[in-house]
């Protein structure tokens, strides 16, 4: 007799006895899902040729245990027949037969891809996905613009309440955080400029540095990135959960155009609020630079402002401002599009929200670079 498994104080065990050209399996104790893990290997090894299972010592049996015992006689002509079993048990044979009958013959778990080929395949899929997303975003933008045009002809169709509400949540409520961030960016720029320019004895140029950096780039970029992180994800989540609850379908059936009711108010709100937020960001950034200049370079605020007026052209301000509505438009369009792309499951809501923020920030940076090249060519 060879006891295969089972501690001494533990009645659950399995005896495997080879006799008369047959393998006799004698399970003992409770065979439940909690216990059978350690019997898998000995059972599978024993399950060849003629197998007889002795049920006399068996205690409690559940479906998992019944399945494993049933596997042993699987090779037999009549796996549930009398020839395969010995001993009495109140329900084991019935349970084993029932489980065998109901077992779904599933294919094995699919293997996960790996290796170099799979990596290239992923890169390829990524590229195709990028192209499709870009094309689709432009299609969405086009659809939004046509909706905007048809609403411009019939202004009473515009959802004023929704537009104003979005202006408040995406614009006014974002004001404090954008102002604070911008203040610090202005301060940091002034600090770096002061340190660097002082070595040339040209610390007064800190004013130009802060002015140009904040007006031309940082004011509008901070605004755009905050909008992308804050409002764009909110748009995706809001529209996406409406999509999941079939609210969008309900709208279509009732005859409400979701572009008119959901997308356009958000786009208009963003396009209007982005320049206003940018203005606030510029003021806060310059204020930050001014405070640092005063503290570290002894440039008084009055002198700072005077220098700002004389040294910096208005065009710097307009360059920054001109980008704001474009960023607002792009961010709102990407947020709404990703929301509309959400499918029925929670997983896709999370994926789309992430994609929405990533795409919006990516688009903002790329468009900013394009603007930089454009204004360089135009000598502004």
């Amino acid at each position, binding site marked *: 007799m060879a006891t295969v498994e089972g501690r001494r104080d533990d009645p659950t065990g399995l005896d495997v006895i080879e006799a008369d050209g047959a393998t006799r399996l004698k399970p003992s104790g409770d065979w439940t899902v909690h216990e059978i*893990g350690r019997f898998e290997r000995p059972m599978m090894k024993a399950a060849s040729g003629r197998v007889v299972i002795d049920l006399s010592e068996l205690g409690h049996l559940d479906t998992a245990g019944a*399945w494993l015992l049933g596997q042993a006689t699987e090779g037999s002509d009549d796996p549930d027949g009398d020839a395969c079993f010995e001993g009495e048990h109140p329900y084991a044979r019935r349970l084993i037969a029932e489980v065998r009958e*109901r077992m779904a013959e599933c294919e094995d778990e699919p293997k996960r891809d790996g290796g170099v080929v799979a990596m290239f395949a992923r890169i390829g899929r990524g590229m195709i996905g990028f192209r499709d997303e870009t094309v689709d975003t432009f299609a969405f933008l086009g659809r939004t613009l046509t909706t905007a045009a048809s609403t411009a002809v019939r202004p009473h169709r515009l959802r004023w309440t929704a537009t104003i509400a979005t202006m408040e949540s995406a614009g006014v409520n974002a004001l404090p955080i954008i102002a604070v961030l911008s203040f610090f960016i202005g301060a940091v720029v002034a600090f770096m400029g002061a340190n660097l320019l002082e070595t040339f004895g040209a610390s007064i140029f800190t004013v130009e540095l802060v002015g140009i950096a904040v007006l031309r780039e940082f004011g509008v970029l901070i605004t755009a990135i905050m909008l992308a992180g804050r409002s764009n994800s909110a748009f995706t989540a809001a529209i996406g959960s409406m999509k999941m609850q079939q609210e969008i379908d309900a709208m279509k059936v009732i005859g409400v155009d979701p572009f008119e009711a959901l997308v356009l108010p958000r786009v208009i709100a963003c396009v209007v609020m982005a320049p206003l937020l940018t203005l606030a960001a510029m003021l806060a950034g310059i204020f930050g630079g001014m405070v640092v200049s005063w503290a570290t370079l002894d440039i008084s605020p009055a002198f700072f402002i005077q220098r700002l007026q004389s040294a910096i052209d208005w065009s710097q301000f307009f360059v920054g401002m001109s980008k704001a509505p474009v960023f607002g438009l792009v961010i709102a369009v990407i947020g709404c599009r990703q929301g509309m792309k959400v499918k029925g*499951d929670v997983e896709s809501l999370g994926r789309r929200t992430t994609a929405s923020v990533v795409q919006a920030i990516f688009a903002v940076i790329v468009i900013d670079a394009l603007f930089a090249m454009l204004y360089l060519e135009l000598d502004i």
Partner: protein
Amino acid sequence: MTGAGDDEIIIEVKGLVTRFGSHVVHDGLDLQVRKGEVLGIVGGSGTGKSVLLNMILGLLTPAAGEILYNGRDMTTLNEEERRDLESEWGVLFQGSALFSSLTVRENIMVPLKEHVTMSRSLMAKIADMKLGLSGLPANAADKFPSDLSGGMKKRAGLARALALDPEVLFLDEPTAGLDPIGANRFDELIKDLSKTLGLTVIMITHDLDSLHAICDRVAVLAEKKVIATAPVPELEDNPHPWIQEYFHGPRGRAARAG
């Protein structure tokens, strides 16, 4: 383990009081569940059937009263005892509550991974067996919940609830939203399983056909209490107006005739 009818009490709710703010849902509710029976819980919308289920499951804490499982107060259990208890219970939630990021097979394997030591391949095999047990086709194993129909989700949820061969199975409206044929099959499945595995089943249902077909006893929730617990034929003679309307309304008559 098999055979309903022995009067051993497995779950007992005593004097349960549930309050949400000033809104009292249960006021001194008592309920006894016998080992091996299929107990139906019925009641109008908003009478706190699902809340009662969540109370028993320990997802909500009662304002007063106690809930005993095998004679032990559940609030006194420590972490480890609580874990052991969880492996003895299977729950099918109203919306199936499958994990959307996992395939059906992986969903069924979650309780196994959490509570049992065995090889992954054996877990997968046991998951496949539960899949068959709950009547899902084999090709559903590698699908994600979002690709399944409502009825299949229910079955997958049931397969997950059965993963650890629980002693007690809780079902929250298992046949709601299923077509009559699907609902019948589900009823038969529950009856089959409770017989084969000796399960104690507690199910909330609005489905009169289910009550007639598979419930050994039915508890009626009204007036913030369980006003009656009895087999269906006995309940039909109960004079309480809500019970009379429930069982003798047009739908009740149709279910009885069928």
